[in-house]
């Protein structure tokens, strides 16, 4: 009797594992297939509009050549500059903020955190109108949208301190204390003890700050206000899928998607380890 149950358990386990493998394969296919489609369609040259098949009848580089001849280069450069600048500046600001809120106990700390929590409940969209007007008074809209977008993106990034604060909270406070007894100033504690231990969260912050601008759409569109020279890739490529352009530009959009996605994805996969650590270490604790 006992023996039988034992065998049954094993068989059951095998069956459930098989079911899981099947499910996982289905999931992988479902999750990857749109990206495979984009890649395939970017090489389709017989037509530029949406069709009912996936494998191109005629292969070619025409879509990529179209891309090269369009404003896409400019958009790509714009986005790249924004991404690079925010990767540096946002990281500095967020780390300053989260380190301070994790490590220092000053009088205004509690009220400050509560204040930012409340501030975060206002839809950010609301502030776009005025920020646009302010930027336009400063001459940082339309063709000059890039510095304007960097300014606004960086300026309010301090609010996103939760994840890295969660990480800093996991570093024992006694390390700070030991270092302070050892003669380190607060700055030296940060520089010599905490930062070397925070590699995962620093890389995570850089990575997310770099990736953010690639998908930034709403405000970027607002600030560029129809001036192609100020577009980023999202705004520019969105315009290709509007009703009057999609028939001509659909496959070019696919090619652009590939050009945008591939470098970011490669970078991401290289640093995947840190991203996972950041998400699992900091995000949940918030």
């Amino acid at each position, binding site marked *: 009797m006992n023996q039988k149950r034992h065998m049954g358990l094993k068989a059951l386990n095998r069956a459930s594992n098989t079911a899981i493998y099947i499910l996982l394969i289905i999931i992988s296919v479902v999750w990857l297939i749109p990206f495979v489609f984009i890649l395939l369609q970017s090489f389709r040259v017989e037509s530029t509009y949406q069709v009912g098949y996936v494998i191109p009848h005629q292969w070619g580089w025409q879509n990529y050549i179209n891309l090269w001849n369009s404003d896409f280069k400019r958009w790509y450069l714009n986005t790249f500059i924004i991404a690079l600048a925010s990767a540096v500046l946002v990281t500095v600001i967020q780390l300053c903020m989260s380190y301070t809120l994790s490590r220092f106990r000053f009088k205004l700390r509690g009220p400050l955190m509560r204040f930012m929590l409340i501030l975060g409940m206002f839809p950010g969209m609301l502030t776009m109108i005025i920020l646009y007007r302010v930027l336009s008074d400063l001459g940082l809209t339309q063709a000059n949208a890039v510095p304007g977008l960097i300014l606004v993106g960086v300026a309010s990034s301090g609010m996103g301190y939760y994840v890295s604060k969660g990480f800093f909270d996991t570093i024992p406070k006694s390390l700070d204390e030991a270092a302070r007894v050892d003669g380190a*100033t*607060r700055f030296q504690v940060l520089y010599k003890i905490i930062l070397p231990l925070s590699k995962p969260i620093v890389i995570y912050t850089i990575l997310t700050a770099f990736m953010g601008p690639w998908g930034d759409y*709403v405000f970027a569109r607002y600030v560029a206000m129809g001036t192609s020279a100020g577009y980023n890739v999202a705004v520019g490529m969105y315009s290709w899928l509007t009703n009057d352009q999609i028939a001509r530009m659909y496959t070019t959009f696919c090619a652009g998607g590939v050009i945008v996605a591939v470098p970011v994805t490669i970078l991401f996969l290289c640093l995947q380890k840190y991203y996972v650590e950041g998400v699992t270490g900091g995000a949940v604790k918030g």
Partner: protein
Amino acid sequence: MKQYSDLEYLRLSKGQKFTYKLTSFFTAIPRGIGHFFANIGLYIKKGVTGVGSELKDIGSTFVNGDWKTKTSFVVMGFGNLARGQILRGLLFLFFEVVFIAYMIFGGAHWMSMVPSLGKVGPSNEYDPVLDIYTTVYNDNSFKILLYGVLTIFFIVAFIYTWRVNVRQNKIMEQILRSGKKLKADKDDLRSMVDENFHATLLALPMTGILVFTVMPIVFMILVAFTNYDGSHNGYSNNLFTWVGLDNFNTLFSWTGGAGGGQSYSATFGEILAWTLIWAFLATFTNYFLGMFVAMMINKKGIHLKKVWRTVLVMTIAIPQFISLLYVSKMFARNGLINLSLMDLGWIKQPLPFWEDATWARVTVVLINIWIGIPHLMLITTGILMNIPADLYESARIDGANAWQQYRKITLPYMLFITGPYLLTSFTGNMNNFNVIYLLTGGAPTNPAASGAAGSVGYTDLLITWLFKITTGADSQYYLASVVGIMVFVVVAFISLVVYNVLPSIKNEEDYQ
């Protein structure tokens, strides 16, 4: 409601336990809200008494202070300069000079205009030299409001700095009287990387938040009390002005809106309902399915764990606008899915993914699952692996099967740890602009609601509606502000209830 003691509770039947818990949950809500308002009252009381004692302290500082202190009441930083703290003194003095200059050369002017938001709009004037009429622009309501807000910020900052200046004099006198030495400039600079390092670190981020988040929000809250819109842009066509609570009345009135459509409040209610349903579905489908996928990958005996994980994680890297736009077009009337299904002869008519309200709503939720699962998989994987293995071992010895282990161990543990995350995720989904806007743009159009403001669709969330209001033909900024404030109220209400009722919101320090 009757309160049970622990032992009494244990004797209740299952149904009674459930009703007891449910009622105590709901009775806790008003208590939580009451608590909130009591707290607000407490803060106000604290603030009033605080101001009183501050004033008293300022008075006594003046009466008891020496001539250096007294001079500092007018010339900020004088006390510091006279007592050898050159650096601090110069900073105070500099701030005062800048403030006075600003007030003289603009601040006072803008402040005086705030009550009216401008008196003279643009006018056509005859130019006798050129013999034509030219438009002369006069007051600018937008700038008046903007600089008015800025000036108020500046005045508050000045009062605060002045107060610090006075207090410093008092402290300096105390230190000198007790025979000790004042801090030298050198010490002040050194303390910026040590005792006061937090102030140094926060200076830049907080300035950014103040200027680019707080000020705009204050501004936009004020806009809700004006008639600022496309035809009252405050400069080139008409000035805008204060209208009191009119806009709130408009939003909450039950009479029909412009163009014979339904009332604003009905439209608002419809969109709010869908926003809440969406946020609920989006949060919990992702949460449970993500956990499910994570558990499948984590299961003992499953190989290639890294591969499965990487496949999913990779999709996070691809910018959302690409995947969302592409998928949106895939499901379009003449998109890949409809075309290929028709080619295969499985359907005759295209499926109305984006044309039918229910289809569109379901599709949006499904695609959101596709977007969200990888992220949730990552988060839950980390927590799942942290559940102590001996919990499962002891459960297995107690005879729990896989489902019972999940129900009794995994799920409670997960919910406990991720409680705060679920809340932020819920409010985040309420404001999930990208997914809705890039997938449907709010479509399909809701003809009844669209009369009110902008073209409202069945998948529109409050946040996309707000966006449409500001970018539509008449750009009803004032209405957008009111809607924005309402979004805040809803989000704050939900957060408040959850924070006060859920026991699992833990003390922050417990983690450290």
